[in-house]
């Protein structure tokens, strides 16, 4: 067989595995609905638009044979993607918007680091470099151009518990500065994802630099994923992540369907 045949065959095998269930498609996305919490910023700043839907017609006088809605939301509402231009550190990088970034990067290997225990003990848990090294000791070095996701179980929370806002701000887990630096500088990740609203921890405003995940990731042209769901269905390694934001002109991010291809257990 020629190389082309081998390539075609490669995907063909995947198609067969998908059809048979040998490869599962796992949905890592929260449903976009009006009640899903969004990030809260100080009142004098522009706020994140909530997801809203309005029916245009439903097989009625407004449109007899069809049913459709208008919807509106922010670029960063619900399960969403952050492009480098979203943060000040990434504003001048080439291909830094959702419509210009290389689509090759939107499909890739994914490593999932389990921090559920630490988070259960401490809502403000910050994943440090040591935790990553411990992961690698068990599961092997994180390959270059991988996605890395921080699993915390946070997606099981609802409402006020999910936002977890107190008088001094939000309290939710995220990566420590040194961890982000390590992943970007020494592991060349495509992007980083979390189950919380935001790739940074809830108290990250007080870190140095403030919001280190956003600052370092986007300053290095890497991407972010947040409000992920169902990370407990992924193996620590071995899955493939598909995370393609909408192709919005000069967009800084978008809500998206995050999927993973997972070899079925057993």
């Amino acid at each position, binding site marked *: 067989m020629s190389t082309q045949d081998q390539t075609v065959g490669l995907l063909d095998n995947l198609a067969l595995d998908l059809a048979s269930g040998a490869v599962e498609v796992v949905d890592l996305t929260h449903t976009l609905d009006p009640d899903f919490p969004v990030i809260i910023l100080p009142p004098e700043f522009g706020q994140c638009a909530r997801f809203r839907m*309005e*029916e*245009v*017609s439903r097989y009625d*006088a*407004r449109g007899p044979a069809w049913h459709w809605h*208008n919807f509106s939301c922010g670029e960063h509402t619900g399960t969403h993607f952050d492009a480098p231009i979203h943060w000040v550190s990434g504003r001048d990088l080439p291909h830094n918007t959702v419509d210009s970034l290389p689509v090759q990067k939107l499909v890739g290997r994914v490593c999932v680091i389990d921090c559920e225990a630490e988070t259960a003990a401490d809502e403000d848990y910050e994943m440090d470099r040591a935790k990553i090294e411990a992961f690698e000791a068990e599961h092997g070095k994180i390959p270059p151009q991988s996605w890395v996701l921080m699993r915390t179980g946070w997606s099981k929370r609802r409402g006020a518990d999910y936002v977890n806002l107190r008088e001094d701000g939000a309290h939710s887990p995220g990566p420590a500065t040194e961890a982000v630096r390590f992943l970007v500088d020494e592991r060349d990740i495509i992007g980083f994802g979390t189950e919380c609203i935001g790739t940074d921890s809830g108290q990250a405003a007080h870190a140095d630099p403030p919001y280190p995940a956003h600052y370092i990731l986007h300053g290095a042209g890497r991407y972010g994923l947040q409000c992920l769901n169902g990370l407990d269905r992924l193996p620590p390694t071995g899955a493939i992540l598909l995370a393609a934001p909408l192709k919005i002109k000069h967009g800084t991010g978008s809500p998206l369907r995050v999927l993973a291809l997972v070899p079925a257990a057993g």
Partner: protein
Amino acid sequence: MAEIGESRLPQPVKKNPQLKTAAPLVPPLRRSRLGLRLAGFAARGEFCLPFCSACEKAVWPPRDACPTCLAELAWQEVGNQGQLIAESVLETSPELYFRGRMPWRIGTVRLACGPSIMAHLHQQVQVGEQVEMGLHLDKAQRAVFMAYKNREGGSVNEDSQLRELTSDPKYRRVLISDARSPAGLALAKALAGAEAREIFAGVAESWRRDAVLDALEALDHVTLVPLDLTDSSSVKELAAEIGGKVDILIHTADQPRPGGLLDGSSLTIAQEMQDRLVTGYMRLASHFGPAMRGRGADGVNSATAFVTILSVYAHANWPSYGTHSACHAAVYSLSQCLRSEMLGSGVRVVNAYTGPLEQDWYESVLPPKLDPQRLARDLIKGLQQGLEDIYIGDVARDVASRFREDAKLLEIELTGGARE
């Protein structure tokens, strides 16, 4: 005594890029409450003065009681004929606005209805002559008087003092925000007739071809420009390109649709209407306003007016077109806000109020309905007169006078008061 000038209006010239643009200055603002009231009449072009019905004469300056018999006074429309009995040409003034506009001609007119009134003088008039008195809003949005020989004469708008008191399209560049609207095409034609120098015809979605677009493209002095009022980047880009050239902005966008609150009307249509009419107005004002505001004193073709065509039901809801009326009410309120923010810039915020137009979305409405040609003609006339509130057509005038007489009664009438 004073010389009568024969100046015709100078043609606008290309701005010298090395010279600073003249900053807008304001004539005196301070008035008593009674004095402020006169501005309301000037806004509508009504010649009203305080009047004593016991003495049967008008009184000026405005007072709280008749100076002859102490009776209470009431404002009413009075005759504007009089005689010019004294004049002076001012060569100097401590007020910056006038200081930069010397010489400035003033006079004393003895009105037939009683008082002597100090007024600006049109270059037509000489002492001893019979004159007509006009009431105008100056650049401080306050009322002042001007004496003319003949208001309707063709060359009356050639006077430079009068040009300060009006928003004449002659020699000016006009942006029509939605040239596709029924008013839009009629205005484009009529403005050319009023000697506007250039007309920018704003058109959204130019990929949608129709007869109106073809007609616009065929007109002289008209340039089609992309303008989508629902798209902030569209408004922003156009303002960046031509904002410094818009002397008069005429906002013609409308989306008349019947419907109220309980009749199952589409909320998405109402949302579009709001976005286009209300948020659209905010987009237009925020992007074009600043540039216009800086050019209020910029020569013979200074920026002079931000005009909006509003439904007269902005004043009181017409339930058959309930959500439509509400959108216009919102724009009306915003226009008042804009008027305040434009104060001192020399740019007037002008509203032209109409009843239903002769167009498809009003086909079930009984006449009288307004013909777009008439709308265009009367709007331009209102600008030439320097009005701030232009009521066009029979319905608009009728509704407006009922509103002023008793707003609640109008509401009762509109919400079904005449039902058996």
